[in-house]
């Protein structure tokens, strides 16, 4: 109970993301270097819990996250948050597949995120300390961030993304190259954030990870969402033929 209370104090969204729900991608068209990535992509994401986006390489999963975060713009179509075509910048935390850390200490990386988010100077050290404790990294506070192991670096980027109490957390294959222990630590933080009311959307190839953390799965193939259903249903009996093939490892990329 105590842990839950301290988690809530650290992780509860500043603005409940239900205020921005549902998130909808509407008629999205996107092309890079004359290669069409999305032609009429449509996706509606539920307000609660953790949504996993799965699909083969090149399906457009990471681009969906970037569209949601406003890092790229669609040539046509709209990203709607509660019906409004405005990305709620500042309410979204993003963890990239490859950790990008500042050339500073561990604690300064978190402090920087808090400073950018406009958190009062006096409050920053306490929040930083709390977040590092949450991630089990308090003993590394003064270490150079870029000297950490891959798992620690990714955990730090996750804590940094949570620093400004986002309502929506976007994770792009956060444990793609991590060992099971480092993956478990990441998943633990993600689950705790979700329990505190943070909406999470995670791109993953790992069916085990989807089973452990996700409430629903959206299956993407060649820029189209072919399936969206509960994780249990998706992993055991997916609706689409291509999802079945993907889960069986038999979906060939052309």
């Amino acid at each position: 109970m105590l842990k839950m209370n301290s988690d809530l104090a650290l992780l509860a969204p500043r603005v409940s993301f239900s205020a921005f729900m549902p998130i909808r991608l509407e008629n999205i068209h996107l092309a890079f270097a004359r290669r069409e990535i999305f032609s009429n992509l449509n996706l509606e994401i539920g307000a609660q819990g953790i949504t996993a986006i799965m699909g083969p390489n090149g399906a457009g999963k990471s681009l969906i996250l970037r569209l949601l975060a406003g890092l790229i713009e669609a040539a046509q179509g709209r990203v709607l948050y509660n019906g409004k075509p405005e990305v709620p910048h500042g309410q979204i935390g993003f963890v990239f597949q490859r950790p990008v850390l500042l050339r500073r200490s561990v604690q300064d990386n978190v402090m920087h995120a808090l400073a950018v988010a406009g958190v009062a100077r006096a409050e920053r050290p306490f929040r930083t300390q709390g977040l590092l404790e949450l991630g089990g990294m308090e003993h590394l506070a003064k270490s150079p961030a870029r000297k950490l192991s891959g798992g620690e670096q990714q955990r730090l980027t996750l804590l940094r993304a949570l620093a400004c109490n986002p309502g929506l957390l976007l994770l792009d294959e956060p444990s793609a190259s991590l060992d099971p222990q480092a993956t478990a630590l990441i998943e633990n933080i993600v689950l705790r954030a979700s329990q505190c009311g943070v909406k999470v959307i995670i791109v993953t190839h790992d069916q085990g990870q989807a089973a452990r953390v996700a409430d629903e799965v959206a299956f993407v193939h060649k820029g189209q969402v072919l399936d969206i259903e509960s994780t249990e249903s998706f992993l055991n009996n997916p609706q689409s033929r291509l999802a079945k093939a993907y889960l069986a490892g038999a979906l060939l990329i052309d």
Partner: protein
Amino acid sequence: MQDFSQAFVQAFALIWQADPVLIDIIALSLQVTFTAVSIACLIGFPIGAALAIGRFPGRMTLVVFLNSLMGLPPVVVGLVIYLFLSAAGPLGFLQLLYTPAAMVIAQVVLVTPIVAALARQVIEDLYGEYDEMLRAMNASRIQTICTLIVDARYSLLTSALAGLGRALAEVGAVIIVGGNIANVTRVMTTTIALETSKGELALALGLGIILIVLSIVINAGLFLLKNSAQKRAYA
């Protein structure tokens, strides 16, 4: 040949005895140079950063223009600043001509393009790495520039060092706007030029040795600093 070796002996004697004239000249040189380079960094780093992250029409033209300013001829800069600061010039009322302040202005004009152009390159490379992360954090333009300057700090020291090298070795501009007045605007390079023309090689050689030693010491110091930062993955 004997004159030459005698001049060396006298030069070392001047250094060893900490000759007051020599010390005054070195102190003024360092004061002018470090002031100019500090001001050039304050102006040049933000300009370099803004050019590195800005996307606007004519940006490439500005970059080429800035790069070409790195080769500004010092005597031309000296002449232009002289015209501005002379009694009949638009800034004549400031009465800065033949003062250390005029020499600082000349050096700032010469060093700022070097610092800004090198900073642009360094920051542009770093921006490629940080761009998405900073946009995902919703960092403002100013926050982005500040983050990039802080994180590129050790590479930017190299840009500052290039500017320092230019300022420390500069003679053409400072002699025009400073006038090489004893005890007022006489710095190491202008003294070397003057003393050599007079055939007084001892002081010129003494200052030359100190100039080279200073350059080595500053470079070595920054090298050690950057090396230690690299070990901590801060550079």
